[in-house]
């Protein structure tokens, strides 16, 4: 699954560690999601969407 997490994070000048802290997950988790190697669960996707003030589909897309 593709996502815009890296761009959205960069726009806010957050490091992976900053984002991980706000999501209460490890930095490795953020990296795995950003690189598309790990798809987050719906609760975590909603948490991300709330954090960025966007809808889930504005962050994630199911394009391969």
């Amino acid at each position, binding site marked *: 699954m593709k996502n815009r997490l890296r761009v959205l994070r960069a726009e806010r000048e957050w490091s992976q560690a900053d984002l991980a802290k706000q999501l*209460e997950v*490890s*930095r490795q*988790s953020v990296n*795995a999601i950003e690189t598309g190697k790990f798809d987050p669960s719906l609760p975590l996707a909603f948490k991300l969407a709330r954090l960025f003030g966007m809808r889930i589909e504005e962050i994630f897309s199911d394009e391969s």
Partner: protein
Amino acid sequence: MWCVSNPAQSRYRVRMLVAAVLCILFAALAAAAFNVWHLTGAVAWVVAVVSALPIVGALVGTGAYLNEEKDEFQRNLYIQAILGGIAGTLAATTIWGYLEDFARAPHMRLIWVCPMFWIFVVVVFPVIRLRYR
């Protein structure tokens, strides 16, 4: 697991350390008890089962960790490592079973199955982590 640390992982490490110490202690005490008193019957069964309890405790501790881990990615990594451990143990013990039956390989005692499982978990875990770098 061994690089990052959160409260659930810290608790898990403590539980595993306690289980490992108890495992060695109980095994030594049981061996001494059987050597000195030559236990038989129900007492022998009870002492044998009690000696195995720390190993069971380690498995329960692993289940507790999976239940407590809030980071779904870390939980996913550990579940994959456990699956790798189970697969490795099943494969190794099955192959060895055939070797015992058909090639007269020496008998492997069942008490080594659980340590073998943990060895597979420890070996597989870093390999799985590499996939997510």
